[in-house]
């Protein structure tokens, strides 16, 4: 037996036993144990079995990533188990099938484990009646203010009312009034009257974010979600409570009253604020981004993202975006600029060009730059960007694609060590041409790890010697960026690029997850995705045609870059593939 085969035959984790249950008369095999919210294997519950059977069980308080509390009672179902005779043996029907003893009481499917032979009934008149009863209870004191509620359109109260509710109300009493527009913290607003007290927000911040900041005050129907007096709800994950809130009780101050949810186009993307690469949905309408929300990916971010990353989108719509191609202070056009640049680079002596890329660029763009580097014999590097990490999602590496820069050969394992050599090369006159992508190398500012939304993506963290004075010695400073800055003002060639939300591509996360993202909005003016004009430039300079689409570029890259071997754009799927880094 070969060594490889032996490795493959290593004893795997013991297989989880399967048990047979019936959901509404359909038999289905489910694992006896299933991972709970914390990843621990626990007995499979009815709601999980129903999910596997593709049977919807409506629920409010249950969330696959949060501890089970069973308080909303929306998931009540009826069930039966095989009847046992006095001898503890199953009683059989005349036809030989096991006789089912139907439980006289319903059970909450979120907390009741399944057992072999169990039958779950989700569509009986009693279940229908219980759902109607729960919905009625939830709605009697609800303000029914859907027309002015931000949750409208993505509200579980609305959805389940249509699916399982009653058309008319018989409630004639005065409604309970509770606080409205409560400022829970810097990013969260509470409308206690809309709240259905499912406690998802409490459990999220206590059990996931580790900040036991929310609780319930008062009693009975007057129960209200609240913070401790004088302690605002302020951690880096508060906005996830808006996502888990099934109704319009918790709203994001940023998104409040900005756009109706049903007008938003949702685009699958990846957060670029750090190396974690949280999967997100970009909500946009008419080329304007309104919000980021986390997208489920158990290999990366589960269902969460940090507040800083979530709010880091406003710079994309800034009015001062670079929208034109500039050549030596004159507006130019892409064909003219690319032609001139290609001629210039083709004639450049080996070693006279250096490249400073950005680890915020995509794998494809970095790979194209690496091709230029190889052709020109150029020194290259990228700019590291460090902050503080936390226990949940935020990585100390604030570049989304450090591993992409490493794997494509733009930088060494330790990013930034070539910057000194590049500075020396410019100072000695050896380097005449500098290509800079997406980094304001002149600026040495730090501080972008605050919770506040950041105004720019071009902030350099590490100090280095490439000053404005030094840049003045260059024959040609070629800069591509998104926002204007000191470096773009010094540049001979300015190539306006696109924000990640304005293009397609892939990033390689800190843990080696290669993830693709889609285009949500158009770039302003003539700004273009960097990979588009880079592949033209590479074509002109090296004669290689690597393809005209991001798919073909990725697939070609996967063939050439060892770490990406075997990957295809299509195989990445929505949630990416992990590679060896």
């Amino acid at each position, binding site marked *: 037996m070969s060594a490889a085969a032996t490795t493959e035959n290593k004893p795997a984790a013991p297989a989880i036993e399967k048990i047979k249950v019936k959901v509404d008369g359909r038999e289905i095999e489910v694992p006896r144990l299933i991972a709970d919210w914390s990843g621990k294997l626990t007995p499979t519950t009815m709601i999980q079995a129903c999910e596997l059977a593709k049977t919807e069980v409506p629920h409010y308080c249950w969330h696959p990533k949060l501890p089970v509390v069973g*308080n909303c009672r929306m998931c009540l179902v009826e069930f039966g188990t095989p009847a046992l005779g006095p001898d503890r043996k199953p009683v059989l029907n005349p036809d030989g099938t096991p006789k089912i003893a139907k439980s006289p009481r*319903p059970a*909450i499917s979120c907390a009741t484990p399944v057992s072999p032979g169990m039958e779950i009934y989700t569509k009986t008149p009693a279940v229908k009646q219980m759902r109607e009863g729960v919905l009625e209870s939830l709605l009697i004191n609800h303000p029914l203010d859907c027309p002015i509620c931000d949750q409208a359109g993505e509200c579980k109260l609305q959805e389940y009312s249509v699916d399982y509710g009653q058309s008319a109300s018989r409630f004639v009493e005065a409604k309970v009034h509770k606080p409205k527009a409560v400022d829970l913290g810097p990013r969260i607003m509470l409308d206690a009257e809309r709240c259905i*007290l499912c406690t998802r927000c409490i459990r999220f911040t206590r059990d996931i974010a580790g900040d036991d900041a929310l609780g319930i005050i008062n009693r*009975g129907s007057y129960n209200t979600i609240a913070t401790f007096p004088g302690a605002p709800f302020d951690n880096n994950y508060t906005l996830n409570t808006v996502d888990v809130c099934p109704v319009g009780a918790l709203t994001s101050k940023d998104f409040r009253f900005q756009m109706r949810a049903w007008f938003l186009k949702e685009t699958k993307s990846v957060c670029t604020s750090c190396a974690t690469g949280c999967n997100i949905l970009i909500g946009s309408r008419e080329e304007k981004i309104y919000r980021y929300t986390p997208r489920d990916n158990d290999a990366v971010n589960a269902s969460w993202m940090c507040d800083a990353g979530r709010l880091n989108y406003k710079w994309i719509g800034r009015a001062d975006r670079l929208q034109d191609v500039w050549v030596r202070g004159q507006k130019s056009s892409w064909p003219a600029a690319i032609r001139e640049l290609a001629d210039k680079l083709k004639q450049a002596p080996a070693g006279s060009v250096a490249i400073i890329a950005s680890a915020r660029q995509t794998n494809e763009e970095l790979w194209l730059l690496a091709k230029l580097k190889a052709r020109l014999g150029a020194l290259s590097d990228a700019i590291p960007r460090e902050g503080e990490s936390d226990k949940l999602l935020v990585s100390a590496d604030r570049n989304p694609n450090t591993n992409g820069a490493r794997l494509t050969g733009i930088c060494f394992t330790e990013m930034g060590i070539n910057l000194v050599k590049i500075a020396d090369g410019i100072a000695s006159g050896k380097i005449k041409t500098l290509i800079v992508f997406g980094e304001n190398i002149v600026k040495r500012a730090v501080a972008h790890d605050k919770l506040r939304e950041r105004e720019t993506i071009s902030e350099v963290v590490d100090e280095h010697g490439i000053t404005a004075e030094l840049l003045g010695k260059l024959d040609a400073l070629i800069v591509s960026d998104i926002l204007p800055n000191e470096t773009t003002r010094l540049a001979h060639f300015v190539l306006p690029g696109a924000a990640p939300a304005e293009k397609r591509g892939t990033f390689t996360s800190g843990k080696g997850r290669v993830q693709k993202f889609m285009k949500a909005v158009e770039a302003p003016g003539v700004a273009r995705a960097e990979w588009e004009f880079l592949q033209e430039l590479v074509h002109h300079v090296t004669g290689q045609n690597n393809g005209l689409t991001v798919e073909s570029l990725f697939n070609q890259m996967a063939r050439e870059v060892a770490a990406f071997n075997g990957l295809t754009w299509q195989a990445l799927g929505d949630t990416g593939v992990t590679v060896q880094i």
Partner: protein
Amino acid sequence: MAQEYKLILKHADEPGYTPDMECYLRHGGYQALKKALALPVKDLPDGKKLSGPEQIREDVKVSGLRGRGGAGFSCGLKWSFVDRKSGKPIYLICNADESEPGTFKDRQIIHKDPHQLIEGMIISCFANDVKLAYIYIRGEMPEGARILNQALKEARAKNFLGKNILGTGYDLEMHVHRGAGAYICGEETGLIESLEGKRPYPRIKPPYFPAILGLWMCPTIVNNVETLCNVKHIVTLSGAEFAKLGTPNNTGTRIVSLSGQVKRPGYYEIEVGKATLGELINDPKFGGGLREGRRLKAIIPGGSSSKVLKAGEKFKLKKKDAEGKEILVETDVLDLPYDFDSLAQAGTMSGSSAIIVMDDSVDIVGALANLSEFYAHESCGQCTPCREGSLWMNRTLQRLTHGEGRRQDADYLGKIADNIPGGRTICAFGEACSWPVQSFLAKFKDEFVAKGAADEARRAQSISGAAAGTSVAPVAPH
């Protein structure tokens, strides 16, 4: 003829009996504990050996003792569910959160004979290998908490508590924990949450059965005050002797809290099932009958959560005839033996053994509105049907009692109540708040309809009167 039978309250009301240690010891106190601690290992015919604690557990099973808190569940069975193999400590909690309206029995024990409770608890702890026990006492009973703390101090001084109790090597510590004033803390899992310092939200079962995942997620026994006192008497008498008290499957004694419109309200200890509801209400030894000129209207037989009984109601009770054959005997409500099983057969329960008597002067709608207000105030609000339903029912009833009723309110109220019980809620509070409404409506519906109809008629008259220019006080719109 029905008699009082004083087992738990044997000494409590004797003149000169005080709640201190010396008095308790003079009356034979802590002898049962000494007997329990000294039980030798028993050899069984099959060669197995039964330790002292195992013998006590077995004896509690034999005694047929049923929980005195409300559910009437077998104490021996409850103890047998305790997970003794988890390796975790086992806790015992005395539920002294007596707050069921109408109930005032546990406080008699706590105030007058606290050492009896403590002795019963120490024996129960010893029987269940418990090293740490709590008395969770209702917040509104500060005097009881003070007395218990004093008694615990005395017990520690005598080495009935603490390390190496009476030289046996058994260690036990016990603490009094005061609630903060919530009825729901009497629900055992709500109590446990409260004891852990949290909001007393009852836990979902499964998975949080106290016998497996109780206090601090460890196996836990929660017993009522009176139940734990009985354990002492089971050890003194033996389980078999104890079982001779009361009636089969309803053994021992119960302290009945009798309130409402009787001449002699108070607490009476009886052998379970040896007195009827009628005797308890009318016998001069007990309630002594209703006030002059009044007729019985309704009885709430087991604390405010139990379903109401109507005067003159008849029930078919299962009884055994002379040959041991089971027969159904028609029984008037007043002839119902006051025990667990007869009241269950009458569709209600003996609950916390608190009888509330209502005569014909009572406005039944008002009485229910009063009960309903209590439940709306006490619902913890954790799960939807009870949180919203308890207040909805109360608002409807308040409307009915404030002259704003409607003819259809009886049906309306019934439908609200029907959406709460039957396993739809996390704990039994759902049943507790809806059973009174359901049973009052089932038995006195005409009074609800009449009230609504009268309100409608008055409003109609007010409108037509206003149209005719006469002045009739308008009814405020709801």
